[in-house]
């Protein structure tokens, strides 16, 4: 038994391409199962690709950027800043005398801009009534299931610096 191709009396082109237009609609069981097995091979290759990517995880490096001066924002106040690129808006909150937290402003549901609700003391998304905790960015209500990406805030003297993004799942 030949594994891949049964020896045929017909030339290969006639075997693979039907001459009669009616035969074009006809797919044999063997051809169909060949397509299925090739799809299965494709899925396996996809899994291998994920495996290889997981062995060599891409760790992005972020620049350390000054975002605000300490004391610039009142307690309970916010400041918007772009990080890491100009297109990525983030929100910096002052939660105490010397405590600052910053998150990406993109809602993890459908990327609407979240805002700080001082009355509810949480970050809210106006699109689908999603809400996130100020403490750790975890979702509190609505459709978002993942927390907001957290911006690592460091203090150097009088300057607050954004020093990276922490993704939590």
């Amino acid at each position: 038994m030949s594994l891949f191709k049964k020896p045929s009396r017909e030339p290969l082109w006639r075997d693979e391409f039907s001459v009669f237009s009616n035969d074009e609609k006809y797919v044999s069981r063997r051809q169909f199962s060949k397509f299925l097995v090739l799809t299965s091979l494709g899925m396996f290759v996809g899994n291998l690709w994920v495996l290889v990517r997981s062995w060599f995880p891409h760790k992005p490096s972020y620049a350390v950027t000054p975002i605000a001066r300490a004391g610039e924002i009142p307690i309970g106040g916010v400041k918007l800043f772009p990080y890491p690129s100009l297109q990525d808006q983030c929100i910096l909150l002052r939660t105490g005398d010397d405590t600052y937290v910053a998150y990406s402003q993109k809602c993890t549901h459908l990327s609407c801009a979240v805002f700080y609700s001082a009355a509810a003391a949480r970050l809210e998304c106006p699109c689908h009534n999603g809400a996130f905790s100020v403490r750790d960015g975890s979702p509190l209500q609505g459709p978002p299931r993942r927390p907001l990406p957290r911006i690592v805030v460091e203090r150097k003297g009088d300057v607050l610096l954004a020093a990276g993004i922490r993704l939590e799942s």
Partner: protein
Amino acid sequence: MEQQTSPSSKKGVTAIDGAMALIVILLIVQIWLVSATLETYLAGHYETALPGAIVSGAIFLACFGLYLFIERLDEEFRDH
């Protein structure tokens, strides 16, 4: 006019259909497996990648085995 088919040939076609149905079921499971592995990978959980790839490989081998079975049956019953 209806073509006459021998009982053994009919049995062979049934076996081929059964094997094909099994391939389809395995493929559905494999598609789900790829999407689940990819989703967990994108969520930052890398520990599912290895078992996902092993199971996916096993499913592919099973599908390939069934394909060889179909080829063999097809050849056998065509010759009769």
